[in-house]
């Protein structure tokens, strides 16, 4: 009886880890799909039942680990409402594309949470992963309609945190970005029963 229970419950930390794992793969996938870095810098990895490409560049790796470590803490403490991956033109700092990862907080299994004195959810991990896979496939498919990036581009990740959140070391406040004449495309959402992740890509509509 006790074994079965642990199998189906997802703790708050575990849910945040799933979210951050998704973010890692999604950001890497976008970097690969949008051609920000040469393809030989990526290596294939099996995840969620599909092959995903992960950057092997040391700089990108360290950046993402630092980012996601902090983000995980914030997500656990419900400080973050959105993470935005922005792709900008290096020459004039113009934002060309914005991938919004909206995080919404859910109740999970209320009865079980009371019983265990800790917020937990009861959703099958396989189902969550299947949902994530659907989103990743959609991300890969966006390349067919997103405009071609024909300039020297780079990326940044902006974390939309609550105002009472402390700014840790190595972090800085940034200006919120907006794309003029933007086109929004909402991708599928997935939920871990504690967190709901909504992925939206907005891009500059070609003139």
């Amino acid at each position: 009886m006790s074994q079965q229970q642990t199998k189906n419950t997802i703790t708050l930390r575990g849910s945040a880890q799933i979210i951050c794992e998704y973010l890692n793969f999604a950001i890497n996938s976008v970097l690969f799909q949008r051609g920000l870095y040469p393809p030989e810098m990526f290596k294939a990895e099996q995840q969620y039942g599909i092959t995903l490409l992960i950057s092997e560049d040391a700089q990108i790796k360290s950046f993402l680990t630092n980012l996601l470590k902090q983000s995980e803490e914030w997500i656990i403490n419900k400080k973050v409402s959105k993470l935005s991956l922005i792709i900008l033109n290096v020459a004039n700092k113009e934002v060309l594309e914005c991938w919004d990862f909206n995080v919404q907080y859910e109740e999970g299994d209320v009865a079980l949470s009371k019983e265990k004195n800790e917020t937990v959810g009861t959703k099958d991990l396989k189902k969550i992963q299947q949902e994530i896979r659907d989103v990743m496939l959609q991300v890969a498919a966006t390349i067919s309609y997103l405009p071609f990036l024909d300039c020297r581009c780079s990326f940044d990740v902006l974390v939309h945190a609550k105002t009472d959140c402390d700014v840790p070391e190595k972090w800085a406040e940034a200006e919120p970005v907006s794309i003029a004449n933007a086109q929004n495309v909402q991708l599928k959402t997935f939920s871990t029963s504690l967190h709901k992740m909504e992925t939206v890509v907005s891009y500059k509509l070609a003139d």
Partner: protein
Amino acid sequence: MAKEGDMSLFNDVLEPFRRVINTDPPKDKLSAASKLNFSDSNQSIKEGLSNLLTLGKRKSSIGPEMSTPDKRMRTDSSSNVASAPPSPWEAKRLKIDLIAAKAQISKLEARVSHQHTIRKEMQILFEEEKTSLMEQHKRDERALSDMEDRLQVVRRREQELRDEFNEAMKEHKEYKANWDREKTELHKQIGELKEKLLEANVSNKDQISEMKKDMDELLQALEGAQSEVEMLKKEVTRQTSRAEQCTTLKTQLEKQTFELQQVTNKLKELEYERDSYKDWQQQAKTAQKRLSNMAELEKEVVRLKATERSLRDAVCNKLLLEEQVHQLSSRVEALQPVQQELHEAKVKIASLESSLEEWKTAARNHGVETARSLASALDSALSSQLTATAGCSQAQSQLAQLTEDIATIKYERDKATTKLNDLVTVRKNQESLIHRLQKRLLLVTRERDSYRQQLDCYEKELSVTLCGETGAGSAALLSARVEQLEKALQGYRDLLATHDQQAHTKMVENLRNEVSKWREEAESLRRDVQKIRAQRDTLQLHMERLDRSQPPQTKVLHLADNPAALAQKQFQLDLEAAQEEIKQLKAALREGGSRACSDAETQQLRQQLENRDIKLKRMKEEFTSSAQEYRDVCYMLLGYKIDRTGHKNYRISNMYAESADDYLTFKLCDDGIEMVHTDYSSTLGELVELHLHHHRSIPLFLSALTMELFTRTTMQQDQ
């Protein structure tokens, strides 16, 4: 006894599990002891029981007593005791005993049951122990079998190793045998070699002795040779002295030959001088001859001077004539336009005469014979014309006045017509006003009538009320009044109908049109509204989404060293570097391009160029000089000068040729060289025939030609 044995065995078995079931051994012992007691007491109880039973059942049945002879003995004894009738005390005591016994029985039974339970537990424990032991046993067996397998494997391996060892030993033995054999062979070989060595030593000694003999012989021969050498040396010294003599002789000879050559040279010079002297002599002779002709020449000179003077005069005359010719020609040129004018004047005169003739004929036709009458006639005609023109101008002024009058009249007429029109409109207005007033008048008259009627009615009423109040009369009056009023009403209605129908219909139509127009407008506006609403909804949705995506009360954070910032920094650096480079390049360009940036290099290149030029020049000089030298050498050695006149064409001229035109032409062909026909070659028919056609050798031909020419020139010189 058996029971006791059982218990001891039980105890023994139990001993190791006491710890397991947490029972104290002394207690157990006690229980064992109690059990022993229990066995005794059991017996005693049974006795008591049987006693009681016998007491109770004696009268009822004897059969059961018979079946147990062991007990019967006791019953007998008890029966013996109970044979006497029991006294009340005894009975009492028996009863007490019975009660006590019964209590004991119950206690003992409880004990028995307790013991049973203990035994069962023990059994269970035993069984568990047994099963565990069985398992242990099985495990041991399995381990044993494994070990046996292992042992077998080890044995097999040992066997294999042993076999290997045996084989190795065998091999070792074989190797040993082989090596022994080889050793013996080698020993044999060593022996043989020793023998050979001995033999060789012996032979060597023989050879040495022989060689010594040879040496002695050779030494003797050497001594002989040395003596010979000394002899030869002496000879050589003699020969050298002779050679020296010879050389001195030779030098003397050379000197003499040199002197001879000098003498011959002098001789030649002298000969040449003699030749030149002969020439001088001849020239002197000719000069003398010319001197003898001097006088004639002087005469001729005088004659020639005279002719020269005459020629000079002629030249002067010619110049004069030329001047005259020039003057005349200029005059002719001046006269030519005058002549042309003359011609033109003649033509004009002819034309004027013809016109005069025409005039005359015209005058004759008008009956005027003389010029004066013509003039008077003309004057009269002119005056009449003047009067006519004056009349004409008068008439024209009158016409202008008339047209002005007409214009003023027209203007007035227009004014009058406009006034008329105004008046007409005024009249129309007046008419309409009149019409309206008439209608009003009509209305007013009607109203007046109705008022009059009403007044009449009132008067009547008043008269009626004044006359007397009768119910029937009043009713009739009222009804009459009602009728009147109704009539009046009807009249009003008719009036209204007649009056307002047209205006009303017009108005209605207008209103209808307006209504329909407004309706259409409303419809279109509604449609617009719907459209705008839909637009608003979509925009609101959009706004909501935007609001959702950009919730307020958040702050945006990012890692300070993000890839975008790094890339921008890198880009900035690149840009600065590029701009720096551009600046440098521009500066370099301003300073004069490549000269500034590579002054040393250009200097070097220039030097190189100069060096190359010098080298080239030297090479050219060298080449031309060597070519010249080669040509000179060829000329000197072979006697022919070879010139290349064109492609594959060569002209050769001999050293001893009589003139420069005597040359031969050759052409290089694919299969050798061919002589081309020239004027000179045609004179050498014999040689060509012999050497070229017969011998087919150009060098031979040329040599022969040289020989011939040489002989010819030397012959000439000799002559």
